[in-house]
């Protein structure tokens, strides 16, 4: 310690000087200024003069607010806590939370200081209690417990209040201290009249319930007693909060509170108390219709309020309704509030509808959110809509046809992120797998979605997903439009057998557009395989060769354009079949594709070596008798397989006929209503529609009967 001379004291910087200098110092000189100030403080804090030390402490405070580390001053601050000057002591106690944590070694020194301060005047005692509440750790709280318990009986409410607040921390840090001490505190609180002390007591009960919930019976009577007579809003909020916890532990307590909750709900004007009551009623009082209705009315006011905070809180309450029927009651208000809400509130509303949409409100919800998506929340809205559609295997969808032909194209056009494009693709695949009849509409779907993609040249903009194809080591990037484009091409390829000649021709004409080939360069292999499938289908369905020449010309045009774009792989299909085709080759191809081929893993051949001495070009079975033997042993197998195939073909041809008839009727009707969402208001299809059933059994691919497989296995 040293004594500053009078000359030094003149030049001593006060807090005000430091603040002014800090505000006028430039950023470049800030570090120098801070270093110099810290050096000064280190000297001054060791001075014998209390005024100098006090100023040093204040400057330390300021530097801590500026973001400087002052933990080096831990020992000095603890030292100052034991000072004779109250102002210095107070400053040190206020600064304690900046330098002391649970692991600080200096806390051991603080025990005796605090014990001494507890015996002083009420102001010193209260500041010491505040400091203890901030820095207490296990050892300190165990050592000072008895002293703090004594202070709970002090004559001053200020001391009692702070002692109880410190006790809640002590009991949380070491729950072993609760037994034997809590009952004493409860007895004192039962006689207590001061609202602040009671409020601290209720906070103490909340803390104890967190660490020892089984002690709840001790609190029931005092909480009920206070809730019936208190008028302070702050205390009532705490009482309602602790009542929630008590109701979850003791449901019978709920019945006792109905009368008081009704009274409070009708009398209070305080929004925070109303919110607390509504929250509690929505969660725990669903069976009490009168109270629930009153709370519901106030909740509707919150949802329609001009104040965005109240709207946000109203939505928060609704998350606890937990039934779709309950949410439907507030649906109108929620949707109205969505229009005025900010991004955070919109997310809340979307989450609500993700949890509680059902078949009844599915269409309303989808149409509303598609109409009201904006730039900021669009990706979240689309993500939520896809979730709602695919939830529990499309449980909310009662009209898959409408979903596919009306809602899905609109969703596709609004997608602007890769994540949503991938979700959309998966949703589409799953829908078409679970509802087999919908594949007939795949060309319409493509037309509606891809037409806009063809006209807009911005398809390469935006973030991209990098993909590396393993077998070719080809690297390319996809953006969201291309992901959707690829998926649609694949769907059309899978549905080629179900489409009419006219539809197939339209597809090829669409693909011929040069901007499609330019924009979706990464999808050329998919386009290539689609053309191949279409060509095979047309050969099957056009035996008189009426349309084939036209199709071949279109395909040639496409490949001529592709040559200009410089694709890596020239299609075998184009080279050998279109350019140099022979009838024999076409017939072979047709025979080859008569039956479905199983998929082969491209990497399988790496591990399977051909046996030694085997000539792959030679026929491996010459003996006809041998062939017949094999045939006879497997004849049952072959018969069963043929039976299953015949059944499948019959079913398919029946469904094809029906679908084509329906398709013709419905295409005519739908072509009249082409605009996006304006269709929704006018769209009523009065004629009896084909009902598409969604197959929610995960193990069954559509078209196969489980019973057939069982029979076949038993017989085998």
């Amino acid at each position, binding site marked *: 310690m040293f004594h500053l001379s009078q000359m030094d004291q003149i030049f001593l910087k006060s807090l005000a000087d430091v603040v002014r200098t800090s505000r006028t110092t430039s950023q470049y000189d800030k570090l120098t200024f801070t270093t110099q100030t810290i050096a000064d403080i280190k000297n001054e804090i060791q001075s014998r003069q209390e005024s100098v030390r006090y100023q040093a402490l204040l400057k330390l405070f300021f530097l801590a607010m500026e973001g400087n580390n002052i933990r080096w001053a831990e020992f000095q601050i603890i030292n100052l806590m034991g000072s004779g000057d109250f102002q210095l002591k107070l400053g040190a106690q206020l600064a304690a939370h900046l330098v002391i944590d649970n692991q600080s070694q200096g806390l051991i020194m603080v025990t005796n200081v605090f014990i001494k301060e507890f015996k002083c005047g009420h102001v010193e005692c209260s500041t010491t209690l505040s400091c203890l509440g901030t820095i207490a750790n296990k050892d300190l709280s165990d050592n000072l417990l008895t002293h703090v318990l004594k202070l709970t009986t002090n004559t001053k409410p200020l001391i009692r209040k702070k002692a109880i607040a410190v006790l809640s921390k002590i009991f949380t840090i070491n729950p072993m201290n609760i037994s034997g001490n809590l009952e004493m505190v409860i007895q004192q609180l039962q006689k207590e009249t001061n609202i602040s002390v009671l409020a601290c007591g209720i906070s103490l009960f909340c803390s104890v319930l967190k660490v020892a919930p089984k002690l709840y019976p001790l609190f029931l009577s005092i909480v009920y007693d206070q809730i019936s007579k208190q008028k302070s809003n702050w205390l009532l909020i705490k009482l309602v909060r602790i009542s929630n916890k008590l109701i979850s532990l003791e449901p019978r307590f709920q019945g006792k509170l109905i009368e008081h909750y009704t009274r409070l709900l009708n009398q209070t004007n305080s929004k925070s108390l109303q919110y607390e009551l509504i929250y509690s009623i929505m969660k725990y009082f669903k069976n009490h219709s009168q109270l629930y209705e009153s709370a519901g009315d106030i909740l509707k006011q919150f949802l329609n309020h001009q104040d965005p905070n109240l709207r946000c809180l109203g939505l928060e309450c609704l998350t606890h309704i937990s039934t779709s029927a309950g949410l439907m009651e507030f649906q109108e208000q929620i949707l109205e509030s969505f229009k005025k809400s900010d991004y*955070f509130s919109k997310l809340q509303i979307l989450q609500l509808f993700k949890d509680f949409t059902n078949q009844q409100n599915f269409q309303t919800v989808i149409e509303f959110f598609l109409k009201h998506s904006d730039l900021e929340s669009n990706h979240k809205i689309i993500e939520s809509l896809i979730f709602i559609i695919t939830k529990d295997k499309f449980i909310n969808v009662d009209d898959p046809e409408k979903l596919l032909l009306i809602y899905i194209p609109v969703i596709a056009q609004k997608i602007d992120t890769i994540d949503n494009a991938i979700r959309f693709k998966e949703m589409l695949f799953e829908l078409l797998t679970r509802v087999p009849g919908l594949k007939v509409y795949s060309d319409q779907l493509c037309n509606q979605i891809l037409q806009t993609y063809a006209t807009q040249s911005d398809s390469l903009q935006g973030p991209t997903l990098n993909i590396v194809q393993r077998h070719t080591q080809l690297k390319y990037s996809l953006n969201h439009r291309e992901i959707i484009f690829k998926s649609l091409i694949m769907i059309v390829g899978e549905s080629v057998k179900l489409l009419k000649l006219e539809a197939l021709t339209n597809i090829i004409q669409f693909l011929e557009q040069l901007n499609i080939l330019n924009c979706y360069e990464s999808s050329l292999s998919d386009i290539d395989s689609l053309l191949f499938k279409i060509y095979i289908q047309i050969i099957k369905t056009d035996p008189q060769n009426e349309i084939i020449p036209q199709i071949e010309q279109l395909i040639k045009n496409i490949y001529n354009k592709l040559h200009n774009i410089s694709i890596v792989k020239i299609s075998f299909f184009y080279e050998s079949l279109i350019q140099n085709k022979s009838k024999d080759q076409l017939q072979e191809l047709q025979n080859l594709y008569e039956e479905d081929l199983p998929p082969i893993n491209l990497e399988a051949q790496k591990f399977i070596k051909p046996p030694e001495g085997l000539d792959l070009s030679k026929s491996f079975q010459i003996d006809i008798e041998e062939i017949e033997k094999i045939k006879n042993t497997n004849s049952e197998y072959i018969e069963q397989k043929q039976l299953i195939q015949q059944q499948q073909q019959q079913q398919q041809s029946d469904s094809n006929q029906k679908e084509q008839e329906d398709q013709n009727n419905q295409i005519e009707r739908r072509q009249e209503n082409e605009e996006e969402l304006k269709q929704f208001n006018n769209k009523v299809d009065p004629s009896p529609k084909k009902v598409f059933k969604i197959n929610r059994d995960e193990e069954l691919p559509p078209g196969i009967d489980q019973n057939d497989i069982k029979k076949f296995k038993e017989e085998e």
Partner: protein
Amino acid sequence: MINFILMVNKQGQTRLAQYFQFLSVKERMTLEGELIRKCLSRSETQCSFLEHRGYKIIYRRYASLYFIIGMDLEEENEMAYLEFIHNLVETLDKYFENVCELDIMFNIEKAHYILEEMVMNGQIVETNKTQILAPIHVLDKAKDE
């Protein structure tokens, strides 16, 4: 439970910070910077509640100062804490008489003292302005004498 109370100006300078759970200086500076950026980016039509880094944040703007409270994510009454912020400002205004940012900067220990009288261990212990300011008036009298 309240985890922290901050007063930050528009330039991101913290004028008052009370933490009820210990955080290192670096963590505090990062948290304060992120919070003020988030609060500044919000418009007046948006609600005063948001979530950040596992805290529920309630904030209110008075002139150039943002009063920010960070709480646990468990169920809390956000409206009550919003009203508490207003109560705090009214208390400071009553003591400093037309309080401004400079009053808090030049009387930092008094601002901390008032806050400690209102909040202890993350819980609100007093909301009556007279009761809150009584000890500090006693101290001022003793100092004058």
